[in-house]
């Protein structure tokens, strides 16, 4: 009786894990270039742009998803700190369709806010490219993005200050003019 209960329990517990496959196993094969991008002297308040190329080496069309990933400290290049904010990086597309044996480009923009505290920094962040798949094993390729900001941050002209300086110059000019004219008259 106990044996029957155990067997019944075992049968009830049976389930299917990991989608049974009736399709042929398919190799994972795609590439991303460049593998590493280094941006130097980026002033806070400015943006830099570059392109990533995804090469689909499959015999069929594939969708690729792009993500931004903060690598752990031990995986970062020496002297590189964590990139402060993922939202400073924008991708022209977070999902891209690439035809069989073709390649497609994604534009990446890195924009640093205009604050002096972001000047003179060395950061690292990774951009991940993953083909959409429901298979058990998937591959993701990371592109290392190394960003260094310049020591001087770019200052945008302050309209109030500019107007004040212009007004000051005009007043100074007029004042000087009347001073010299009055002096000349007195003489």
């Amino acid at each position: 009786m106990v044996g029957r209960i155990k067997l019944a329990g075992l049968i009830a517990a049976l389930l299917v894990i990991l989608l049974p496959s009736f399709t042929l196993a398919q190799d994972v094969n795609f590439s991303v270039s460049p593998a590493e991008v280094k941006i130097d002297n980026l002033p806070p308040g400015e943006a830099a742009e570059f392109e990533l190329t995804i090469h689909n080496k499959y015999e069929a069309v594939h969708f690729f998803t792009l993500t931004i990933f903060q690598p752990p400290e031990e995986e970062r290049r020496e002297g590189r700190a964590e990139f402060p904010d993922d939202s400073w990086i924008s991708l022209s597309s977070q999902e891209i369709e690439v035809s069989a044996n073709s390649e497609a480009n994604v534009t990446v923009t890195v924009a640093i806010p205009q604050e002096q505290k972001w000047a003179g920094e060395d950061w690292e962040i990774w951009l991940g490219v993953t083909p959409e798949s429901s298979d058990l094993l998937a591959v993701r390729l990371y592109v290392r993005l190394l960003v260094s900001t310049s020591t001087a941050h770019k200052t945008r002209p302050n309209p109030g200050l500019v107007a004040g300086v212009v007004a000051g110059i005009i007043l100074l000019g007029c004042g000087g003019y009347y001073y010299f004219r009055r002096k000349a008259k007195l003489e």
Partner: protein
Amino acid sequence: MKALITSIVAAIILALILALPALGEESESITITMTGVNEISISLDKTQWPLGNVATDMEYMTSPAIEWCTLTVEGNSNVNTFIVGEDAKWVDNPSAYKWTLSNDGTNGENVYGLQFRISGDTSRGYVPVTKIEGEFWPYAGDSSLAPGDTKQFGLKLLTPTYFIGDRQVQTQITISAVAA
């Protein structure tokens, strides 16, 4: 007339003194370097493991055990590779039922364990696959993989001590690579 010219010249000099530092700041150029002609790529010769029906608290291994799948470094960059797993979700209703992936390869009620082993890796043996990306190869000071290098590996699944039967669950293991 002389006074007017003197005043204008003085005002222009003052304006230049104020504007020059700002003009100097804008002359710095941004450099974007795409390192070499590098392309990153790895391939796997197997992506599916059709297990079929499984029982509670049982261990399942790929066959061959540790030479089941071959990872090959393509492209022209040396790479470091990582592995990460996830919870196994019910295919019919992923938000309603799942097996949680344990963080040490062990199992429990509705908790399953997953481990990998690389052929030739005698020091680590089976290593748990967790939800946090961990080192696949290299580890502990070994050298990274060069283009053309291969690594064979296998998987081991430990099913939960209890789970709801007749439900098809699905999971995914991601192997990732970054330029070394």
